[in-house]
């Protein structure tokens, strides 16, 4: 349903030119959960913004359901990493989740129902009339997810949504993603730099090179469903997949001077 063909994005001009995304090709089928992993600074966010219609690609194109993406498509929802900056602090959780639905032609009763169901799906019914800043980081990210779900997209793009959340909360949120995917049947394109997370969640993993980004390898993840934070991660197959992805990324030597990428890699996997 989602086709990314020869996608490239270049910033600037002349000798200040930066090729963030080089040549990305990827197809996502209906109902899939595809994880996109790559070293930090490899243009993942740029890629996602192009796919989401927020940036115009320099080369190539993105089609959703056969139609070219030239602006944010109606059937797509985005969840960013900076949840606290994407929520409106002046109004309640309910109104935050309601925002994308306001311009859709739906009767008011239906809108309320969608909002309440989505908030319930992420387990925040008790806090529906609170201000977002009264909630913890993990809960705020749930609000962002509920907002995306209430919108009833056919595809969900998530840009490192759990990177700013503590490890234990991250596990809960990962399971939440899997459960809403099952409940709502939505296709998900999930960007992360956490290798464990990518293997845990994915049906398929796209491993990226460093900038200018391309798809280095597509890996099918054959782990049993439903996934479990403990049982799944004890499986030998999990370890094998994890190691494989890790090696692919480690072999991605960062561009000279790209200290940030090196440091990020080192920080993510200190045992290496």
């Amino acid at each position: 349903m989602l086709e990314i063909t020869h996608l490239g994005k270049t910033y600037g001009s002349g000798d200040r030119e930066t090729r963030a995304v080089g040549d990305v090709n990827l197809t996502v089928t209906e109902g899939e959960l595809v994880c996109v992993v790559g070293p930090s600074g490899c243009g993942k966010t740029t890629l996602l913004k192009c796919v989401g219609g927020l940036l115009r690609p320099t080369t190539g194109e993105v089609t959703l359901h056969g139609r070219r993406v030239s602006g944010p498509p109606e059937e797509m929802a985005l969840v960013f990493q900076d949840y606290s900056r994407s929520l409106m602090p002046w109004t309640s959780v309910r109104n935050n989740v309601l925002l994308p639905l306001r311009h859709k032609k739906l009767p008011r009763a239906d809108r309320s129902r969608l909002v309440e169901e989505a908030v319930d799906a992420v387990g925040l019914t008790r806090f529906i009339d609170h201000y977002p800043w009264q909630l913890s980081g993990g809960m705020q990210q749930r609000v962002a997810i509920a907002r995306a779900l209430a919108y009833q997209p056919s595809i969900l793009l998530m840009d490192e949504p759990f990177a700013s959340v503590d490890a234990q909360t991250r596990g809960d949120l990962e399971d939440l993603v899997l459960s809403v995917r099952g409940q709502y049947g939505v296709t998900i394109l999930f960007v992360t730099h956490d290798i464990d997370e990518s293997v845990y969640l994915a049906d398929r993993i796209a491993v990226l090179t460093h900038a200018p980004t391309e798809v280095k390898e597509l890996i099918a993840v054959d782990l049993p469903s439903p996934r479990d934070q403990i049982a799944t991660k004890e499986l030998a197959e999990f370890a094998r997949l994890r190691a494989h992805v890790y090696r692919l990324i480690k072999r991605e030597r960062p561009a000279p001077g790209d200290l940030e990428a090196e440091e990020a890699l080192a920080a993510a996997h200190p045992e290496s």
Partner: protein
Amino acid sequence: MSARAWRVAKVVAEIAVPAGILIAWQLWTASAHQARFPRLSTILVQFRKMWLFSQFNEHVVPSLERIGAGFGIAVVVGIALGVPLGLSPRARRAAMPHIEYWRAMPPPALLPISIILVHSIANRQKIAFIAFFCIFPVLLNTIDGIRGIDPTLVETARSYGVPWHERIRRIVLPAAFPQIVAGMRNSLALAVIMMVLSEYFSSTSGVGYVLLISKNTFQLVPMWAAIVLIGVLGYVLNLLFLLVERRVLAWHRGWRAALPD
């Protein structure tokens, strides 16, 4: 001194110092016997006689009307212009020379011109004068407030296909609101000053007019009563505004408190 003694001392000081100043003022003016500095008690008596309520309708109401109308127009125009200027860098570039010039212009320089252009010294001249200069604090703060909006918020709305007019109504304006309110507060204080200036310069009614007339006829106690009234007016309007602001921006305080330092 112990902590408790310090706390008591602070409370005592907070009451004693203002009271002390008032007492000192009374004592000094009583003993100085200067016509130009009448006793505080005399001023207060005159204050009550004039403003509560015999000359209230005649002078205080017109002054308040002018402040209200001028301020109101300034807020509407300031926000209406500030939104497109805040959103469009190109529009800002074009408007900048004009804004920078007029905001730096000392208002009294335009008093005679305002009378000439409006052909009168009636209410509309004063309201126009007040409104014109009170636009700038609101305008500038609106522009700053909009420029400072977190782009993540706007991008999120864009990604959900929220149309531009809804984006402005539901995201841009609320997000810039705290800054706009700060501009409004400054604008209100400015409106009081502009009112006094324009009435003192040319008017047939109003608190500034009373100030002028009583000076010209050497009625010193009414003159002082007018000065005190102007001070009280400035203080009370500011206080009322702060009370409204506190209620309306409660979410903002909570949000800022919750932000990690």
